[in-house]
């Protein structure tokens, strides 16, 4: 058989276009991992997703979408102690949750190699903060590797396992979203024999029992191991000095920002300066930095965020007695993503050189245009049950955009697809920070401000992540809050990983161990629990209203599956010839004669399938349901106060075929597998 799937079967000599996250996963595979886990989080999700998707064709590989990062890293530690090389991945903020196992990992050490791949998110396009997780290593001592491109993402990950074993640390592989979601050329390496991967836990009380004096001894041991690693890193292949000509200026950088730096220098035509590329950004060996400093009187550190390298290098410079000047954050911003533009501008400013004219023109033109362009924000998919949930909640608490009415209740937000409800036109969140902060903060507000009704929102995956103790806490301490669990059965935002609520996989196979959420909530001591379909908007809104009148903790489960998964499953099952789509088909339409453009569907519900059209004859605008986008959820039909939206049934097969265009404008229609299967 040919190599139909290079991710699984590729060997030395093969190359393909691979996503950064997939390159990390492939590196782990080449290193012979037997365990891979994560709690899904953008931008890191594909690291474990690609392994999970292919696991049936990979011998002795265990994959897990854990309920949270704390459990996931502990799982990786358990696998490592059983002699299994293990990969754990998470997004930047995930390390806050996993910081406890991460802290202990240096004390106890690993057995088989353990790599923690972290997808950081500078600029926070997919996160609720842009924290730089590298700072954790100053006190948990996890070594940090930072690949700069796709090839290094794979190679570094592979090597990280050897280093992890050699120095008994869990090694952090840091990948910002620009690397996670970069796709470029990857040259494959060989795979290790996987037949021997087998767990064998060997007792090691000296290292694994970490308390009292034993903890103090372990503390001393890891400081010692850290010194050994530093020594190793003076000559390692990971940190490279590129010598310059006679220039007394040197640049230090790492990761993707190093790639920005090298291309910026090329764009600016600057080639004569010394460069230090750091593959390991923790620990930094003084001797290596000292060697780089030789002959230099100015050093420029090019990095993202607050200056983790600058912090360490300035300390080393002080200890070495370096007399030159060290620059960093004077030229490169501390917040937001550091883009290639920022690096070009920073370097030009440092050399006091003018910017290339084409670049300068483009930057100025963009500034001039930006103010003229309407902002665009993401929103729920067409047919998403969250849209109906938000609409109902907002109606129940008296909110209206068109009538300019503010809502009466405090609404606590949380992390997931439904976070988009904080954007216009819903503006349905008063605060949003981390996972399960909604109920955590909301329950306390309900105790201290008795004048206001408090509603906290959470998704099923976020609830299972760490919401159960918060709910129990709210019950035990007598808070007065309505908790709405938006249960769409999937961790949808990160690419649809299963949750304990997932009833059926997309091929229709029923899940094992499905949890009864209502029973779970009841067992925590909540007496007011209702579970209903949010797409029945009127019923749902009136349920919210009645719940708000009750004292104590109330839970309403908005139970309806993610529309994307429902549509995908239907498509798969149809293909198998269930005949399901051949039955009568329906279409929703707005009757021009009845529509008074009250904006209930167009602005309040704001379904993107309802669009504005111009009547060619009269020149008047009218609202129109685009049949190519509508997924026939029927919510608009239910909410229309003028009964202007009607359902039209079609029984003619030909008519149906004309009408049934795209179910959902899915981006992934076209060759999904091309990326790997070349």
């Amino acid at each position, binding site marked *: 058989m040919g190599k139909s799937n290079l991710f699984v079967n590729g060997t030395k000599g093969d190359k393909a*276009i691979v996503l950064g996250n997939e390159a990390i996963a492939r590196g782990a595979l080449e290193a012979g991992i037997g365990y891979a886990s994560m709690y899904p989080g953008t931008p890191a999700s594909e690291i474990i997703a690609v392994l999970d998707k292919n696991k049936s064709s990979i011998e002795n590989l265990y994959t897990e979408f854990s309920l949270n990062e704390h459990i996931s890293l502990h799982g990786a530690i358990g696998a490592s102690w059983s002699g299994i090389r293990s990969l754990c991945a998470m997004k930047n903020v995930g390390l806050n949750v996993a910081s406890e196992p991460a802290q202990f990992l240096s004390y106890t050490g690993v057995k088989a190699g353990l790599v923690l791949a972290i997808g950081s998110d500078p600029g926070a396009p997919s996160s609720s903060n842009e924290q730089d997780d590298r700072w954790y290593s100053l006190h948990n001592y996890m070594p940090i590797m930072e690949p700069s491109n796709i090839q290094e993402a794979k190679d570094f990950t592979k090597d990280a396992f050897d280093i992890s074993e050699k120095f008994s640390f869990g090694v952090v592989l840091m990948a910002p979203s620009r690397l996670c979601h*970069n796709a470029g050329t990857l040259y494959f390496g060989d795979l290790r024999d996987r037949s021997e991967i087998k767990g064998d836990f060997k007792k090691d009380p000296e290292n694994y029992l970490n308390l009292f004096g034993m903890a103090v001894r372990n503390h001393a041991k890891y400081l010692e191991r850290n010194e050994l690693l530093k020594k190793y890193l003076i000559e390692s292949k990971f940190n490279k000095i590129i010598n310059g000509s006679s220039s007394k200026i040197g640049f230090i950088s790492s990761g993707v920002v190093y790639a920005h730096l090298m291309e910026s220098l090329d764009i600016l035509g600057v080639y004569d300066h010394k460069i230090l590329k750091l593959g390991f950004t923790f620990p930094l060996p003084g001797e290596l930095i000292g060697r780089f400093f030789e002959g230099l009187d100015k050093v420029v550190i090019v990095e993202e965020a607050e200056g983790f390298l600058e912090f360490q290098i300035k300390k080393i410079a002080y200890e070495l007695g370096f007399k030159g000047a060290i620059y960093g954050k004077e030229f490169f911003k501390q917040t937001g993503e550091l883009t290639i533009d920022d690096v070009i501008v920073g370097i030009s400013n440092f050399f006091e050189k003018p910017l290339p004219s*084409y670049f300068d023109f483009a930057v100025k033109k963009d500034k001039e245009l930006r103010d003229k362009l309407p902002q665009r924000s*993401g929103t729920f998919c067409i047919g998403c049950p969250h849209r109906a949930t938000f609409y109902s909640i907002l109606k129940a608490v008296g909110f209206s955009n068109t009538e300019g009415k503010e809502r009466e209740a405090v609404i606590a937000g949380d992390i997931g697809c439904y976070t988009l409800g904080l954007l216009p036109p819903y503006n349905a969140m008063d605060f949003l920070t981390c996972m399960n902060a909604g109920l955590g903060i909301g329950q306390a507000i309900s105790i201290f401000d008795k004048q206001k009704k408090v509603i906290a929102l959470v998704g099923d995956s976020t609830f299972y992540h760490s919401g159960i103790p918060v709910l129990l806490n709210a019950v035990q301490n007598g808070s007065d809050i309505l908790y709405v669990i938006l249960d769409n059965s999937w961790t949808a935002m990160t690419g649809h990983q299963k949750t304990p609520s997932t009833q059926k996989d997309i091929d229709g196979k029923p899940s094992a161990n499905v949890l009864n959420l209502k029973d779970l909530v009841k067992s925590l001591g909540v007496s007011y629990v209702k579970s209903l379909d949010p797409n029945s908007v009127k019923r749902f809104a009136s349920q919210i209203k009645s719940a708000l009148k009750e004292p104590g903790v109330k839970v309403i489960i908005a139970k309806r599956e993610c529309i994307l998964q429902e549509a995908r499953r239907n498509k798969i099952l149809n293909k198998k010839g269930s005949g399901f789509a051949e039955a009568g088909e329906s279409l929703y339409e707005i009757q021009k004669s009845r529509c008074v453009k009250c904006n209930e569907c167009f*602005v309040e519900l704001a379904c993107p399938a309802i669009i504005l059209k111009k009547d060619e004859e009269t020149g008047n605008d009218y609202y129109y349901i685009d049949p190519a986008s509508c997924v026939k959820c029927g919510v608009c039909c239910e909410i229309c106060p003028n009964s202007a939206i009607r359902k039209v049934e079609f029984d003619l097969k030909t008519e149906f075929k004309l009408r049934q265009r*795209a179910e959902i404008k*899915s981006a992934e229609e*076209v*060759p999904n597998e091309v990326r790997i*299967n070349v």
Partner: protein
Amino acid sequence: MKKFNIAIVGLGGQGIITMGTVMKNAALSSDLQDVSGSERRGGAQREGYVETFVKYIFYENESEMKDPRKSMHSPMIESGGADALISLEPLETLRGACYINKNSIVIFNKTPYIPISVRMGQTSYPEISFIVSELMKITENIFYYDFDAISLENFNSLTQKNIIALGALFAKAVIPIEIAAIENILKIGKGSENNLKAFKLGLKL
């Protein structure tokens, strides 16, 4: 070393990332060729702004390919650094205009997707004539079509508009990648027949 940078912009769900993937895969035939380029995905932001970059790199020789000062490429395109811009939404063409220069080729889709702020009456959607005139201040090589309509008409679905636009790019710009290389990629995977047909439709524009 020669480079050819393509920026692709549009909305979540329009097939932007797929276009980038197809184009990058077409760059695997030569050893002296490299490709880079990141995607801006941003969670599940349906209808939000999405962009992806395709950066083709052609080395003169092996020693250049091994030169650390030449062989590391940013995943991003700098302002004004794109040789071509494809946009699947008219307004977003202007958001992506930061990447183009006076020699760039611009291909954009005429079908607007109205942002929420316009729906709510807070802002207005620019006329196509405004979009074109603003682009003309940067480059004269501007081509726009109703890719949504072409896709609907030929496939009864909107999903092929990205591949049609890709064909249009190859029709209008001199891309240092062979058309056959793109077609070879489109032959693999789901829906290859429609993809090839869509690409050919674009080539004829």
